[in-house]
């Protein structure tokens, strides 16, 4: 039994990959899930793992070599097996790619009636990129590739609305088609079960991540007109900019006190961590800003996945702090430090730099006074943070020196109007000038 090793789609947009390094040599024993090679994608260096057990019999693409996704780049065989007349690289055999690089959607669920096969004979985990060379009619056990759950369009929609996995519902229509009555029965069964187990009251933090992830707000005629007119006037994303000056005295004091408490050299909280925390908390209070432009609707997120621009030698990458609105300062600090470090080494996984709902870019540490960021579509805005500068200001008739910081927000005018953005910035300013407001 031989297993072909394919060039896999390791990022959502990857079309070809380059072998940076083989971690196994020809003749080495390999087992399922073990790392075979490091592959450079268009985004990062990723690990390619074995999809079968045996011996790495033949490497078909050397280090530095490039191959399109789907091409066979090595062959794993049993211990005593020879490669024989197995097909070699370049034959153009293309494996299936799933668009997100993950296993197919819920529709490819495991089917209970699927025949169980020999233990250890595991199916490919990632979109069927490897295939077992087996005697004819034998199917790999578990996930049956291409097996789609048959369901009426209505049943499909109702299941989605009820957040039910279609594959878990028994279909009573012709050929096992899942139809309306099946989904309704499943929903009823779920409700009964729920009623029997009295759920404990959710904590505040849980509530913030348990509710619906977003709400799609249909476009009003006015909103459509605003969108069309603005696009006519300026680029595909009609930017406008709002700038606010923040007095950072209290944050500087707070940082000093917090870091004294932490007493840990590595775990020190930076000004940027405070800014991220304050931005996330402000976004949670302003879902109209924490939004995506979907073309025919605006998606308002109830959870904050904060993209943080990080400079690397080769360019910009934006790792994402998930559910930043419910994370504490220490957690945010540790997470962004770790993500940024791996980003600089190009070691981020695709899911770590996609899916942000809003972004922050900070060039303060480069001595930039103030700047404007370019929105990362479909997000509706980005906050650009400048450096803190000792600035003379007039307070109660006296000239005093205060540490001021300029924050500039770029807004997609199709989603955010001036006053909407201004209200968000007001909240952000409050949180930074009076950190205690974050506790409210």
């Amino acid at each position: 039994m031989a297993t072909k090793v394919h060039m896999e789609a390791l990022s959502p947009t990857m079309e070809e990959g380059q072998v940076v390094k083989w971690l196994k040599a020809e003749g080495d024993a390999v087992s399922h899930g073990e790392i075979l090679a490091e592959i450079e994608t268009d985004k990062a260096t990723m690990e390619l793992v074995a999809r079968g057990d045996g011996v790495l019999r033949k490497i078909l693409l050397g280090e530095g070599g490039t191959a399109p996704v789907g091409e066979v780049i090595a062959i794993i065989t049993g211990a005593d097996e020879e490669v024989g007349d197995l097909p070699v690289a370049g034959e153009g055999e293309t494996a299936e790619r799933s668009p997100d690089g993950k296993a197919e959607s819920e529709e490819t669920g495991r089917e209970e009636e699927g025949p169980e096969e020999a233990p250890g004979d595991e199916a490919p985990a990632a979109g069927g990129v490897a295939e077992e060379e087996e005697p004819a009619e034998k199917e790999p056990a578990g996930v049956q590739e291409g097996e789609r759950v048959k369901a009426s369009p209505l049943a499909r929609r109702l299941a989605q609305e009820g957040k039910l996995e279609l594959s878990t519902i028994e279909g009573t229509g012709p050929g096992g088609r899942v139809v309306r009555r099946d989904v309704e029965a499943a929903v009823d069964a779920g409700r009964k079960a729920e009623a029997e187990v009295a759920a404990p009251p959710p904590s505040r933090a849980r509530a913030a991540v348990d509710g619906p992830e977003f709400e799609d707000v249909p476009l009003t005629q006015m909103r459509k007109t605003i969108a069309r007119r603005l696009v006519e006037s300026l680029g595909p994303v009609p930017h406008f900019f709002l700038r606010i000056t923040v007095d950072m005295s209290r944050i500087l004091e707070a940082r000093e006190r917090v870091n004294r408490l932490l007493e840990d050299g590595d775990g020190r909280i930076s000004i940027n961590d405070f800014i991220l925390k304050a931005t996330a908390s402000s976004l949670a209070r302003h879902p109209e800003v924490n939004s995506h432009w979907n073309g025919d609707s605006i998606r308002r997120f109830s959870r904050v996945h904060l993209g943080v621009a990080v400079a690397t030698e080769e360019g910009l990458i934006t790792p994402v702090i998930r559910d930043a609105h419910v994370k504490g300062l220490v957690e945010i600090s540790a997470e962004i430090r770790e993500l940024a470090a791996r980003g600089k080494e190009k070691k981020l996984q695709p899911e770590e730099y996609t899916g942000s709902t809003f972004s922050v870019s900070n060039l303060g540490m480069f001595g930039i006074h103030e700047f404007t960021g370019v929105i990362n579509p479909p997000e509706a805005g980005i906050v650009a943070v400048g450096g803190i500068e000792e600035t003379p200001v007039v307070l109660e008739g006296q000239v005093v020196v205060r540490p001021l910081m300029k924050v500039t927000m770029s807004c997609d005018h199709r989603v955010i109007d001036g006053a909407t953005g201004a209200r968000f910035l007001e909240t952000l300013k409050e949180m930074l000038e009076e950190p205690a407001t974050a506790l409210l």
Partner: protein
Amino acid sequence: MAEITYREALNQALAEELERDDSVFLMGEEVAEYDGAYKVSKGLLDRFGDLRVVDSPISELGFAGLGVGAAMVGLRPIIEFMTFNFSLLALDQIINSAAKMLYMTGGQINIPIVFRGPSGAALQLGAQHSQAAETWYVHVPGLKVVAPATPADAKGLMKAAIRDDDPVIFLESELLYNVRGEVPDGDHVVPLGLADVKREGGDVSIIAHGKTVHLALQAAKRLEKDGIEAEVLDLRSLRPLDVDAILATVRKTNRVVYVEEGWPYLGMGAQIAATIQEEAFDDLDAPVLRVTQADVPMPYAKNLEKLAKPNAERVIAACKQVLYRT
């Protein structure tokens, strides 16, 4: 509100419009002296004279063309085909002249004409005289097509068709002429392009037009005994089509059976099924099924003709199929 026959309803509509508007006239084979082959124009010659109610020679292409010409210079002709089987002889005038004149004159000359007569199979008239004409005409942009099922709709739609400024194909039926029903008093006009829910129900939608509306109602009544509430939507107008009404009933019941007396291949049901899957895909719990005439020329033999036509049993079976009840 008086109960009258479909034939009387049409006769009333013709008389009222002839009375109301001097530019309206009726022409066709035997419409005057003989009162019409199916007596739809009974008494009209006596009442309006032979300039308004005109017997034509047996020449469909000729008198259809006369009608189009009269319409071009401002009259409002009603052209009767003894049956729509004979309208095939006049296709060039209907499709190439009547339907396209407004377009080809850049909007200068409209054709306010009604082509009317019975369509579809009656009883044992043979393959050449037993065909449903709607699909041939509904295909053509520039034509409006209506097929009323009840006396009230027949009267109201006829008045709307005569008053309409575009050519209207008005499909009647030999088997409907004696159907009785209540018709509102006064100037009863049913606008073109509006469907009508003939029976409310929440489990399955039976959509039909013309004669098959009655089949749908029969089927719905029998389904009631099995606890199935069928909604019957009568399209009335095939073009323009009341898409909103179709989508509304789909969203209500999630299941559709289309019943028509024509052939299945690219029939009206094909258009309806296409519209539904385009516009209401996520509301469907089952494929749209069609009940039609068998895909053969209509047999003359009585037993075979019966088998070839759509019937209530087949409508009931189709409804149970889309309800996943067997």
